[in-house]
């Protein structure tokens, strides 16, 4: 396990999604990489993500969505964050975020337009996300 880097993450699975395995592994991997992790588990609403981010003074919100309703569930997230005073807070999404096998360039664009800083395709290994986080949060 790496030394703590002081950066705080709020993670969870959005919407009515109950896929519990990936987020548990992400929690473990982020911790091993030195992050301070608040794992909200599955079936997390936008409000819960925002509440937890405010409460923990988080550096990033990491949203996982596996079941295909990611697009409906993520709509308006950035606006709500802005309203709550979390302007510019780092916001990632990943998993199987849309229904079916779609062209990922397209999907990425749609989520970028919705205000997500980074959008990850199915099966992204934790290492990739950790690298991005370190870069975006200026760790090391």
């Amino acid at each position, binding site marked *: 396990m790496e030394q703590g880097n002081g950066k705080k993450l709020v993670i969870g699975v959005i*919407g*009515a*999604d109950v896929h519990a*395995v990936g987020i548990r*592994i992400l929690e473990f991997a982020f911790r091993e990489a030195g992050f301070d992790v608040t794992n909200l588990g599955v079936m997390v609403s936008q409000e819960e993500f925002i509440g937890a981010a405010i409460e923990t003074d988080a550096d990033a919100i990491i949203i996982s969505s596996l079941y*295909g309703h990611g697009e409906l569930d993520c709509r308006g997230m950035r606006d709500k964050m802005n309203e709550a005073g979390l302007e510019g807070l780092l916001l990632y999404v990943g998993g199987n975020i849309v229904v079916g*096998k779609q062209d990922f360039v397209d999907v990425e664009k749609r989520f970028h337009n919705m205000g997500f800083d980074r959008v990850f395709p199915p099966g992204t290994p934790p290492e990739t996300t950790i690298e991005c986080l370190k870069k975006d949060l200026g760790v090391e």
Partner: protein
Amino acid sequence: MDELRNKKWTRDEFESVRSEILTQWPTGKDVDMEEAFAYHKSLPEHKVFSFKLNKAKEEGKTLIQPRAGVPLIPQMIELLTYLQDVGKADLLPTTIDSYTRQNRYNEAEVGITESERSGKAMLNGFPAVNHGVAGCRMLIDALDTPIQIRHGTPDARLLTEITYAGGYTSYEGGGISYNIPYAKNVSLEATIRDWQYVDRLTGIYEEAGCPINREPYGPLTGTLVPPFVSHSVAVIEALLAAEQGVKNVTVGYGQCGNLTQDVAAVQVLQSLTDEYLRKYGYGDVNVTTVLHQWMGGFPQEESKAYSVIAWGSAVAALSHATKVIVKTPHEAIGVPTKEANADGMLCTQQIINMLGEQSLNTYGLKDEKVIIAAETRCVLDKCFELGKGDLAQGVILAIRSGALDIPFAPSRYNAGKMLPARDNDGAIRLFHAGNVPLTPELLDFHREKIEERAKYEKRQASFQMVIDDVYAISKGRLVGRPTNK
């Protein structure tokens, strides 16, 4: 409300709940039970699930069934017709979307509208409640194959009413299997009660001469579930269902990956369920089995996904499961296209037809059967003991205490103290037993199996090993070895 008991509901108890259920969403008012019986009786035998299953069981055949659901009716008919005609499905599904599963019919309605508007499927399944009785019957009428509702709904009462009235003759789920893997905050008391309703409704249809097949959901979280855990749930749900008058049950099991363990598991599942049903006075229930092809994380490459599909098919064929639920080459990516779905079925069919005549009689098979049966008995007997003879109470206490413990489950009512890992041959064993009430001999057996692997891999058994096992199949192997092995 009365204390929860494993006891057949009276008609009064049933009706008093029912009037409330049917008003949960406008489409509820179209349910007319007498008219529904007539509709069911008008169905030809080849459209009735139980007939087809029982016939296959007699003939020793393994039937093939895909998963599939899209938001809109015309597309759903097109999809199922394709799977029937091109994919040669023996049995068809209607997979319900995730909003409906959470009784969020408003959001499902938004999904329908958005799908119509955008021409893209915005829901991950078919919102049967919103489409109502008439919508369901459009599917039943359009297809020539029995169709089943497949979902993951903790409170499925309205969905059941609508789809039964809509002519469906098979229905997946159960109070434990559709709660612990599919919910976070729903109490077991609630789901067991709600599924008593579903089972009682099924019983009422049976009593009216309309057979409806019920299928406890076997694979649970699909992630390193030891056979005895899912078998315990399957037998319990079969017993609970039988008490409410269910007469046709299909018990299920998700492939683990080790051939011997898997074949043993399917065979024991049939015999144990039969045995417990007989023992508790439900000897007239027809039991069939279903093997789910690998339910955990899939490899992304289609060529590798085919391999996993074929291997699952081999298990179904060699164990002579009554049916097999098929994955697709798109599994790791997203809800499959109809073509990908049919491809998975054709791949499955080829193996089933090549292997259906063969069977497996390994030295290890008998041992494994004895072990799985013994483990399952430990858990089942503990449930009866905890409930002082009442299974409904017993299972709640068993899950609370971790005597029955489902790995990787999202539910906060699940203990999550048990940790599974693969042994050196890839069979799923216990790394931490938690509170599972196995005999000391069985616990020793598990310990030795895991130690053997740890020794071979020259590392301590740890959560890292479990994670490696979770990833293994999607990374191209069965046992999650460290990189040097």
